[in-house]
């Protein structure tokens, strides 16, 4: 049987199973809900964009989530299949199929118990964030036992002991965690809090991993004294008054010599603060962070996106338009960052534009490395608290949305981007690879008739003619156009082309056309596309993965029941 037929049969089997379970729903026996997703691609060779050969031709990433609930009891599982291999760009270690996520739990009054897999986040995630991001091929689910307990109103306690998912295996490290959060408004209900709201919390997370023999570079006759238990703790607060919010968290991690910090013993610190004010027609937020030696994983030898325990929030706008989002995205540098962001949203008042208000978003962010001085010993370096080191990234952008009538809406965006590609993406070897780009986007939506809309998008990315080095397919200027038709909510079709017309190497001046059609039937969405995918980097929340160039037919299905 061909690999294509095997995958097709498997996909049909998944759907049939889900439908059967749905049909078995009965109030007497609890309820089953779930969803199914299939992303598949039929790969074609395309030497012009240097595609990798895919001998198996057809690949699919699929999953089925099932959640059963009855009263206070719940159980669930997720079946995943990456066959014959994961789609290009996803970690090859996902190859195979099975049930990597399963759990059961129940709630008994103020106590909640989960055994098996679970996701958890303490505060902003500085010392713990376990989550799944399917588009990145990222899943650091915990597997163990978790207790949640609320002894009194307003006080919530969480404790767990677990290991982390590592593709189809487990982390070598065991993780213990404890979190307490106090919401004073609920804890002291008799106090007249008026517009005030205060939440305070604290967390501990610890990794136990057996030792290993690592020679001490400063004294090769001896080994390093490796800490088997590495703990981190954090304190946080969230203060609110009316439309004002202040969120702050500070985290500290004891000595954690690991492969990414070159086995230094310097403690790690992370500080994050966010202040926001919002009122009708206006929203302002300011955020800042300082991160030092704070890559925290459940394996001291893990690298890349493997076995991450914590999450450093990105302080850059998460762009959604294709060129700003994917040509030069920012990847968070968990071992050295000092950055800030300002974001202002406002809507023009009625007296200025009575009929159709204009919405404006102004955003600026800048992230640099810490300014450090090597100590020459096992503690690595010292750093000044607020001095900027080498700059990683800067983004200044403005986005304006203006309805032009009842049937048309126009969005305009301009962005200035600056990036040290060597430091952020590891591209280039010895010299900093500095990128500067001007990006403009025009996005127009026209409601042709009731339920029928057309959307047009034109984007342009201009970079200086000379960059160092010009060795990548993404270098040089780009243009992009998109036309999309929607018949809400049943049908959509789109045609898009990205063109690297400004690459100084004429062979790399390539068109990347794609076309897609899709239908939505109740809770099921099916889309089929065809075209070229350019090589690049996909980042979500500052966590990134490489995407190789590909060409072919894509199929995606998402259904819930």
């Amino acid at each position, binding site marked *: 049987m061909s690999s294509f037929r095997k995958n097709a049969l498997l996909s049909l089997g998944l759907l049939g199973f889900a439908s059967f379970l749905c049909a078995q729903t009965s109030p007497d026996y609890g309820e089953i809900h779930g969803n199914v997703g299939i992303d598949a691609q039929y790969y074609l060779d395309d030497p012009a964009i240097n595609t990798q050969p895919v001998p198996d031709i057809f690949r699919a990433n699929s999953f089925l989530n099932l959640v059963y609930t009855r009263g206070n009891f719940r159980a669930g599982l997720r079946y995943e299949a990456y066959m014959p291999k994961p789609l290009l760009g996803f970690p090859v270690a996902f190859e195979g199929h099975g049930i990597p996520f399963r759990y059961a739990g129940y709630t008994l009054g103020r106590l909640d118990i989960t055994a098996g897999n679970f996701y958890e986040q303490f505060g902003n995630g500085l010392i713990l964030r376990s989550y799944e991001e399917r588009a990145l091929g990222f899943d650091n689910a915990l597997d163990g036992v978790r*207790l949640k307990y609320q002894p009194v109103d307003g006080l919530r306690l969480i404790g767990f002991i677990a290991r982390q998912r590592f593709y189809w295996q487990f982390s070598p490290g065991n993780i*213990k965690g404890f979190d307490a959060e106090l919401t004073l408004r609920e804890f002291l209900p008799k106090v007249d809090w008026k517009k005030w709201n205060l939440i305070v919390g604290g967390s501990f997370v610890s990794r136990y991993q057996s030792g290993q023999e690592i*020679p001490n570079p400063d004294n090769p006759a001896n080994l*390093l004294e490796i800490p088997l238990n590495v703990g981190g703790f954090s304190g946080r607060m969230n203060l609110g008054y009316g439309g004002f919010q202040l969120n702050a968290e500070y985290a500290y991690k004891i000595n954690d010599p690991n492969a990414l910090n070159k086995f230094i013993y310097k403690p790690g610190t992370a500080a994050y603060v966010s202040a926001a004010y919002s009122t009708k027609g206006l929203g302002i937020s300011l955020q800042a962070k300082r991160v030092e030696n704070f890559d925290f994983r459940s394996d001291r030898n893990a690298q890349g996106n493997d076995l991450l325990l914590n999450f450093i929030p990105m302080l850059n706008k998460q762009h959604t338009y294709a060129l700003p989002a994917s040509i030069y995205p920012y990847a968070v540098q968990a071992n050295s960052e000092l950055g800030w962001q300002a974001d202002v949203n406002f809507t023009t008042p009625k007296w200025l534009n009575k009929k159709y208000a204009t919405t404006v978003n102004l955003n600026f962010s800048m992230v640099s490395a810490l300014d450090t001085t090597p100590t020459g010993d096992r503690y690595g370096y010292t750093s000044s608290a607020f001095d900027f080191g080498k700059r990683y990234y800067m983004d200044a952008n403005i986005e304006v949305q203006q309805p032009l009538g009842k049937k048309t809406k126009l969005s305009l965006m301009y962005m200035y981007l600056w990036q040290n590609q060597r430091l952020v993406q590891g591209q280039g070897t010895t010299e900093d690879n500095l990128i500067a780009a001007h990006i403009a986007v025009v996005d127009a939506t026209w409601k042709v008739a009731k339920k029928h809309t057309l959307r047009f998008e034109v984007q342009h990315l201009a970079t200086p003619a000379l960059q160092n080095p010009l060795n990548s397919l993404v270098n040089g200027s780009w243009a992009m156009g998109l036309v999309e038709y929607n018949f809400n909510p049943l049908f959509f079709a789109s045609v898009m082309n990205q063109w690297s017309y400004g690459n100084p190497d004429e062979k790399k001046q390539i068109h990347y056309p794609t076309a897609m059609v899709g239908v939505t039937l109740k809770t099921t969405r099916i889309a089929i596309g065809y075209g070229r995918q350019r090589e690049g980097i996909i980042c979500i929340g500052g966590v990134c993965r490489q995407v190789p160039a590909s060409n072919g037919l894509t199929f995606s299905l998402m259904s819930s029941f």
Partner: protein
Amino acid sequence: MKYAAFLVLGGLFLILPSCDIIEDPDGPPAPNVPFCTDTPSFQPRVNPEIKLLLEDYTGHRCGNCPLAASKLHELQVAHPGQVVGLAVHAQAAGYFTAPKTGTAFTHDFRNEVSNTLDAFFQVAATGLPKGVVNRKRVNGAYDLPISTWGQIVQQELNASQMADLQVKTLWDSSTSSLCAFVFIEHLSGTLPDSLMLSVYLAENSFVNWQADYSVPGEEIEFYEHNHVLRASLGPIWGKAVQLNGTSAVLSFSKSFSGATWVMSNCSVVAVLQNGLSREVIQAEEVAAIP
């Protein structure tokens, strides 16, 4: 319910995390056998040569695998001293590497080192024989058919040499302990931030059964297995390398008491690699017993 609350609170505190704060990172003496304490002196080579690692994923019940062994030998003859080979017998190859009782193929070539390497590079399950050159992807794949080895080897040997390795070994027959000192010298270019050094033990001239489709009967009783990956002297993915200026010396030692292989036929293979991508920067091979 109140008692339950106390019990739960107690349980939560029981799992409170612990921390090992290290006052002095300088730990215990490296567990070298006594004769492995004095680091020998190394002098940078006058004319260092780039040396690559070719890992031959093979199996004793794989009838086409002797072709790959021949190809590896041919490349070693064509590029004297520059092609370091390892024969990897991984469990994921299934039938090809599994011993089978009731037949002549009872020797188990598989081991943890081979399985761990294969778990990362995912080669054995793609069918044997396959090779991996310098642990680099070629057109997106690690596993290379024999027909491509020559071209890829030539390509790798044409690259500029970033580092050189020298290995000196000591063998203590009374304790069956092997010691290896590896001298790493940075020559040119920028080495990756994460640099790891692995040291493996490979056995040569091991005579045992081998399937071979090119001979009558398709089996050879006295087949000479070479470069058989047997063990790792340190962590499989290596020890972290911290250069002191442009060089460093790392020591590895292990007791092979009880091991059945013939140490005098073994060689020590050192592999300097990028700790992130696993790509090999330089390899070196010397006899286990000098």
